[in-house]
C-alpha cells in the first residue's frame, strides 16, 4: 500500500536536488545529505537558508528544529526496538513521518517490519531522486507543477483519519491542529509541530 509513494518521494528528492544545485550546493553534498539526514523538509529548509545567503548556523538550527519532532515520534515506537545498539541506531534512521504513520506508530497495532520496509523504500527513492535532480538540474523542470506538496498534505490527512477513533483522540487532533496554526506565524518552522505534542493534555484525562 506504500508502493505508490515511491515515485512521489523520488520526484520530491529530485526537486531537492534541483534546489541544492540552484543554491550552489554540490551534487555530492546533496546526495550525502539525503542519505544521512533523510528528512525532506529539514533538508529543504537548510539549503534554502544557504541559498538565500544565510549563515551555516541559521541553516543548521532551522533544520534541527524541524527534526526535533523525531524525539516524540521515536519514543512512541521505542518499544518495538530491541537488539544491539548499532542495529537500533541504524533502524532508527528509517523512521520518517510516512513510514512511522503508515506502520501505525504510536498505536497498539504498530508494525515494525512495515516501518523498516516502508522506510527503506522511501530512502532509496529519496536518495536516488536527489542524485538525479542534482545532476540533471533544471533539465527535469519545475517539480512543483506535479502537486506533490498537496499530495503529501492529503496523505497526512488520510493517516490522521486512521488515528481519530474516540473522543479523546479527536480532541487531541483538534488541539494539535490549533496549536500548529497559531504558532506558524509566531515561531520558526518545526516549532509548531513540536509544540502540538502538548495537545496530548487535551485528551489525557479521558485516555
Amino acid at each position, binding site marked *: 500500500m506504500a508502493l505508490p509513494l515511491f515515485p512521489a518521494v523520488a520526484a520530491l528528492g529530485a526537486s531537492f536536488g534541483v534546489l541544492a544545485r540552484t543554491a550552489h550546493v554540490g551534487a555530492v553534498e546533496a546526495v550525502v545529505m539525503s542519505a544521512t539526514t533523510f528528512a525532506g523538509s529539514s533538508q529543504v529548509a537548510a539549503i534554502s537558508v544557504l541559498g538565500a545567503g544565510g549563515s551555516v548556523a541559521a541553516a543548521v538550527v532551522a533544520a534541527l528544529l524541524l527534526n526535533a519532532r523525531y524525539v516524540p515520534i521515536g519514543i512512541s515506537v521505542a518499544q518495538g526496538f530491541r537488539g544491539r545498539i548499532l542495529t*537500533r541506531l541504524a533502524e532508527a534512521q528509517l523512521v520518517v513521518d510516512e513510514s512511522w504513520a503508515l506502520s501505525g506508530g504510536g498505536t497498539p497495532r504498530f508494525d515494525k517490519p512495515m516501518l523498516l520496509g516502508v522506510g527503506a523504500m522511501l530512502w532509496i527513492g529519496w536518495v536516488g531522486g536527489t542524485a538525479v535532480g542534482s545532476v540533471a538540474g533544471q533539465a527535469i523542470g519545475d517539480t512543483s507543477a506535479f502537486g506533490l506538496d498537496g499530495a503529501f498534505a492529503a496523505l497526512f490527512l488520510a493517516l490522521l483519519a486512521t488515528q481519530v477513533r474516540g473522543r479523546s483522540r479527536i480532541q487531541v487532533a483538534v488541539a494539535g491542529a490549533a496549536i500548529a496554526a497559531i504558532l506558524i506565524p509566531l515561531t520558526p518552522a518545526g516549532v509548531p509541530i513540536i509544540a502540538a505534542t502538548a495537545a496530548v493534555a487535551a485528551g489525557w484525562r479521558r485516555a
Partner: protein
Amino acid sequence: MSAGWVTVAAVGVGTVLLKAVGPVGVAGRQLPPAAERVLELVAPAILAALVVTETFASGRHLVADARLAGVGAGLVCVLLRAPFWVVVLCGALATAAVRALQ
C-alpha cells in the same frame, strides 16, 4: 570545508541523534501504563499538526494556495474510504490542476 559540507555534516549528525533518542535511548524498556497512554495520543497530535503545516504554512505565513485543493480532494477520498494511494494521487492531481490554472 565549504559552507555546504559543514551544514550537511552538522544537520546529518544532529538528525541521526534526534532520531536515535527513542529507538536507542528508550528501546525495549517497559514504560509505565500512564506513559504508554500519553504516547498513544502523540500520533494524532503530530499528524494533525503536519496536516496544518503542510497545507497552510509558507515560511512563517499562513496561506491558502493550491495545496488546499489537494487536501480537499484527499478529504473526499478519505470519506469515500479510498486506499492511501488513491488519496495521494487525487491530492497531487487536484493540487497540480489548481496550480496550472493560476
